[in-house]
């Protein structure tokens, strides 16, 4: 499990390929990649008028196996499976499903309401709703 950023993606960054993202110039949701993509939980990040939505595939995980936390300007998703060990009588013919732990950190934008982040699990998909908190521009009067 790697939480400490090894490298910040500069090339092949899915975000930078999206023209819509250009205006944020690699601002929010910049992610610290662990470098091992096959073991990274696939994620979608969608923004609408009110919220940011993060969807992450966590097949086989229960609610209790997932921890979500915010640390400084990052949202950290950690998932530890509650696996039953395979007994001696069971033969394993194929084992493609990753049964280890996942961790992924997402850089959060500043304009969010940290107190009201909500999460739910449905059909092996984690959904995190982060409400926006847009502060109006403040004008400072010269005294």
């Amino acid at each position: 499990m790697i939480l400490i950023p090894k490298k910040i993606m500069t090339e092949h960054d899915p975000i930078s390929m999206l023209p819509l993202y250009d205006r944020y110039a690699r601002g929010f949701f910049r992610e610290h990649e662990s470098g091992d993509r096959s073991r990274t939980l696939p994620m979608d990040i969608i923004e609408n008028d009110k919220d940011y939505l993060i969807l992450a595939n966590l097949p086989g995980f229960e609610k209790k196996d997932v921890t979500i936390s915010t640390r400084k300007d990052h949202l950290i998703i950690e998932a530890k499976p509650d696996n039953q060990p395979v007994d001696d009588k069971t033969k394993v013919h194929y084992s493609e499903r990753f049964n280890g732990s996942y961790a992924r950190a997402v850089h959060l934008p500043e304009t969010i309401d940290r107190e009201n982040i909500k999460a739910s699990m449905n059909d092996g998909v984690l959904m995190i709703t982060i409400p926006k908190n847009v502060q109006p521009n403040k004008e400072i009067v010269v005294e």
Partner: protein
Amino acid sequence: MRLLRRDSDWSLFDDFLNSFTNDRISRDSRLMAVDVLENDEGYQVMANLPGVKREDLKITVKANELLLETCPEKVDNEQKKIVHMKERYDGCYQRVIKLPENCDQDSIKANLKNGVLTISIPKADPKPDKTITIE
């Protein structure tokens, strides 16, 4: 992702690999990772299908092949949205699993829970050897 083969005697699953041929429907194992286990009673196939609903999943047994297909219905909400990241695959995909001969194909059971499909395939009693009399 690597496909681990732990049992070299298990030749019946060989076609499994060959089935990832060019096809419009994705058969990429990363999209539907599968485990196959065997014990004395039967076989257990487990497939990762996060976000797939029961009604979007089709399981067919035909000529010793187990076919798993899913084509999720696209939910098109008209809300204005910006996609910052899109890594989750939400298209159609399928996988074919060659079944061994000693399967009780009439008693296959499937269960979908937390985005994991579990298919239990009981073993059938081996057919007794048959002597053929010369007419």
